[in-house]
């Protein structure tokens, strides 16, 4: 549900980083904010409670190239992962145009990934959106932890768990080192813009 502002010749769209608590959503946005400074046009708002959790969401619009003479402005959001905040998660998804699902590669987080994806599916449904149709990419985060000798899931395993039906692009990455972070966002933006063009019947 992108907003087209013909007066300002601007299209606003919204991308949400979704995933279980502590999978690295905030770290992704922090990296983007640092690494793509030139494109970032606003401050990053991040809210933490005492328990060092993101209570709310982070906000970070950035400018892209033009689409039919209009600037594309992207709002990036993360959602809090804790179950307690389901209503907030749902609220953040309102009006979403594209989603990056960040999965945690730690083996101990396997079930949490799957539950979170299910939760996403359900929340989208409540807005009348289909997880099979919305622009979506997966990121298998924390790959850097492999060298710490901690049990990680293989990419194949994660594909099987999360992407068997979705069949969307997926990228290994590390939000800490920045590996794969830009790629993931680029891929999501590409899908989102494609879908916007279709939605606005602006096929070239």
């Amino acid at each position, binding site marked *: 549900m992108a907003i087209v502002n013909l007066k300002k010749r601007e299209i606003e769209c919204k991308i949400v980083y979704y995933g279980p608590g502590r999978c690295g959503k905030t770290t992704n946005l922090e990296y983007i904010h640092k690494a793509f400074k030139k494109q970032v046009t606003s401050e990053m708002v991040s809210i933490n409670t*005492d*328990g060092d959790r993101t209570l709310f969401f982070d906000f970070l619009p950035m400018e892209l190239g033009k689409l039919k003479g209009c600037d594309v402005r992207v709002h990036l959001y993360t959602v809090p992962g804790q*179950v307690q905040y389901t209503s907030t998660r749902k609220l953040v998804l309102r009006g979403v145009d594209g989603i990056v699902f960040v999965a945690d590669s730690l083996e101990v987080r396997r079930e949490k990934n799957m539950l979170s994806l299910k939760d996403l599916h359900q929340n989208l449904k409540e807005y009348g959106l289909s997880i099979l149709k919305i622009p979506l990419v997966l990121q298998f985060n924390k790959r850097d932890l492999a060298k710490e000798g901690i049990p990680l899931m293989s990419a194949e395993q994660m594909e099987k768990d999360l992407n068997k039906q979705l069949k969307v692009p997926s990228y290994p990455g590390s939000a800490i080192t920045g590996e794969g972070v830009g790629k993931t966002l680029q891929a999501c933006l590409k899908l989102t813009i494609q879908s916007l063009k279709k939605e606005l019947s602006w096929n070239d």
Partner: protein
Amino acid sequence: MKEIKTLIQEAEIYQSQGLLQDALRQYISASKILLKKEQSEKKNMLMRSITKKIHQLEQSLYNNQQDLKTPKLSKKSQDLVKNLSSYSKKLGKDEALLEGAMSLAKLGQYKSAITEFNKLLTNKKLCVHAAKNIIRNFIALSKPEMAVKHYKRWIEKKRFQNRQFENIRLFLESNLKNKGFEKLLSSHNDTIPEKPPTSNNQPIDDEPEEPLDIISIGIILENRSKEETLELDVNFQSGNNINVILTSNDHKLVEHYSVGYKIPQIRFFLVNALFIGQGIVSSFSKITLGPKIDNYSLDFEIID
């Protein structure tokens, strides 16, 4: 010993990731293995340090739990909720304000909602709506006396025109009665000003048609041998859209509801009338935040 060392290393990494449960589990496994080992000074030292870790983690987990039980939205977060709510619709400033206020009220943040509704009292189109919501929120906060106090203050300040005052007063009265607080009003019976408070008696031209104010509803439960109803106070009304809060016991009676479900028979109690209609569920979910936590929020649209 190697096994224990690995477990401790993993626990440390999990802890650094903020994965406290997972860290705790590794430390507990480590301590279990350690227990089976022969007595030694080294074992005792390690045991002490692991036990300390376990205590610390348990404490942190407990503290986080407590934080979550009373999640207060900071000022900043509340502002963000407001912006977020009006994000996807292009609304006028005041309409956006109204929607933001409603979202706050839905999250049970009644006090902040009242502050927002207060800002709308100067808007000719929305002022009556705002006033009614202020009343509703005070009643939701179990502070009916504050609702009356505000109403009196509006009269002093001549906030509204006579017709609007009557409308609001009727609304206040019905809400108080519904809660058994009608006494609160009796002393203010003569407080509606006789003359229009505005000296230049301009007609209220751009005032929209007021929707019917619904004070409470009775959902007539299906498939019962004799008629049973679920009586609920209206938490929110915006035109034909109604929001009610259900306790978990109420929820059991209607747990088959889902988005799009048609509620076949509802009694709507208005200020001074009753009508029967139907509703389409637009949202039904457990409240996971704020003072109404663990209750359920049901939104539906009235249909003819």
